[in-house]
């Protein structure tokens, strides 16, 4: 495991210029092979998300009963599904929906996690303990389970899936934020800022945020991958984004009944999910190795 130049447990006081350390960190990232590999896959994914409709050879919703459940061929590179829809086109469009769901859910989860995590870390006494307890209750559950239960209440649908995933994921962000805030809040420069009459908001923003940022970014990277997996799980169970919208999980769900005779849908959509999550995990590993070596074990 590489040793970071930033150093384990190093704190960033507001006056210090972290630029040189950070630049060295970026420089080290360029030599981090698995990180670069992850960035390459992620870049390819970004191209697919941006240019999906232009790349797709067919309409992802166009039904063609004559050519149903066909294996990969020059006409349909990845084969067709049970309605004769072109799987390559569905997977290319699916990238948009799956990534949009994951990223939106993470953005919402990050806001909730940030607010609850910093509040529970910063407030002393009972409020902090109660909030910490709430985070722990949610953390105890596997994410899929939380999302499943939430979807059972709200019903399936694009917005509901996003809400369910963000509510399943915020405790994971909150835990990281809470831990970092607890670590930083009693350090001298925070006490000094507080003694000088700094408001809570100012202290959070100027003194605590810079220290929480690196682990937060690492946690967000990993959790986008988790969000992709949870969306896939929900849709696979038929409780996610409703058909005919192509998401990777939906494509796998469609293909489930024909697994033995025509596994293409599940095979390629699962591979697409795997590549996306793998790239996010590799990028997260790289960022963590370089910027936040204390978190190596998480």
């Amino acid at each position, binding site marked *: *495991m590489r040793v970071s130049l930033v150093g384990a447990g190093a704190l960033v006081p507001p006056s210090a210029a972290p630029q040189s350390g950070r630049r060295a960190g970026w420089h080290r990232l360029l030599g981090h092979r698995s990180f670069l590999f992850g960035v390459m896959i992620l870049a390819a994914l970004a191209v697919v998300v941006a240019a999906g409709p232009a790349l797709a050879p067919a309409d992802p919703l166009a039904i063609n009963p004559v050519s149903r459940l066909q294996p990969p061929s020059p006409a349909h590179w990845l084969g067709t599904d049970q309605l004769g829809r072109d799987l390559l086109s569905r997977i290319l469009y699916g990238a948009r929906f799956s990534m949009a769901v994951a990223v939106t859910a993470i953005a919402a989860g990050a806001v909730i996690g940030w607010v609850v995590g910093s509040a529970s870390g910063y407030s002393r006494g009972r409020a902090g303990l109660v909030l910490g307890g709430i985070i722990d209750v949610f953390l105890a559950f596997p994410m*899929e*389970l939380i999302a499943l239960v939430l979807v059972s209440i709200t019903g399936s649908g694009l917005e509901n899936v996003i809400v369910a995933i963000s509510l399943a994921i915020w405790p994971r962000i909150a835990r990281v934020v809470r831990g970092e805030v607890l670590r930083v809040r009693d350090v001298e420069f925070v006490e000094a800022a507080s003694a000088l009459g700094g408001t809570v908001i100012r202290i959070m923003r100027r003194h605590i945020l810079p220290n929480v940022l690196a682990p937060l970014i690492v946690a967000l990277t990993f959790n986008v991958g988790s969000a992709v997996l949870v969306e896939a799980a929900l849709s*696979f*169970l038929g*409780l996610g984004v409703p058909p005919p919208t192509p998401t990777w999980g939906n494509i796998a769900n469609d293909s489930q009944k024909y*697994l033995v005779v025509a596994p293409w849908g599940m095979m390629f959509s699962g591979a697409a999910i795997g590549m996306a999550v793998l790239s996010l995990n590799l990028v997260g590993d790289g960022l963590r190795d370089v910027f936040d070596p204390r978190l190596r*074990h998480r």
Partner: protein
Amino acid sequence: MLHYIGRRLLAALAQVWVVLVISFILIRLTPGDPVTAYLSRVQSEATVSPEYVAQVRRQLGLDRPVVVQFWRYLGRVARGDLGISYTQSEPVLHVILSQLPYTIHLALASLLTSVAIGIPLGVYAATHHGGVLDYAATAAATVGYSVPRFWIGMILILVFAVGLRLFPVIGVGAPGNAPDILYHLALPACTLGLAGAAYIARMTRSAMLEVLSEDYVRTARAKGVLERSVLIRHALRNAMVPITTVIGLSLGRALGGSAIIETLFGRVGIGSLLVESITQRDYALVQGTVLVFALGVFLVNVLVDVGYAWLNPRIRFT
């Protein structure tokens, strides 16, 4: 030690209570009328009079204020009465208990698989740090926890059930027939187990790397202790503290993944039961299954904490 376990159990009970409250409140917010859903299942709409609907509503206790319903629910849960499943016309507890063993088998078998693969793989990778097989094992682990579990299951089905015809694709086996149950358990347990093995291997590797650089390992080697004994008794035993946490986590994840795996392999169990009850809006069954999942997850967490304290005497006294 007993004091510590007692405290952990109390905390877990408090958490279960919170789960009960949350699940109850959330389920009450659900749109759709359970009485209509129940009646449409038992008989055709045409024969249902409004009086009858009201009568069924009274029978199910759904005409009372929500707070009353909640306290009555808590009281019934305390007596082990989780209500009647609207869809199966059977007590929820009975439905759950009849399917729970299959999920427990699945969770335990997958846990065994992931420990049996993950720990040796992690130890090997750590002791051959920087070698080709270390890279291969690390890469396999990284891929292993990035791909969706239904995908691992699909590959196993295609290779071992469809291709080699070694294992069945669906079902749980004949009740009471242990070899048949194991035969049907192999592929689903491997599917969940491989995903868990990836986590355990990764944690074992990094924990072992850390421990192997400790002074006591060098001392043990210097005084001529056999390498195998250094690895197992000195290094692995100390590395087990963080590994235990991950094992507990992967058991929790196996419970969470049971919904997908049981659906994919057409198994009965409380994972597929949860999915079915959600699809059919069977509130009582959803509540009951969620509660049983919550109890399972909290039990696992308490066991992990106890194992943690047993392996690491330092935390018993804090």
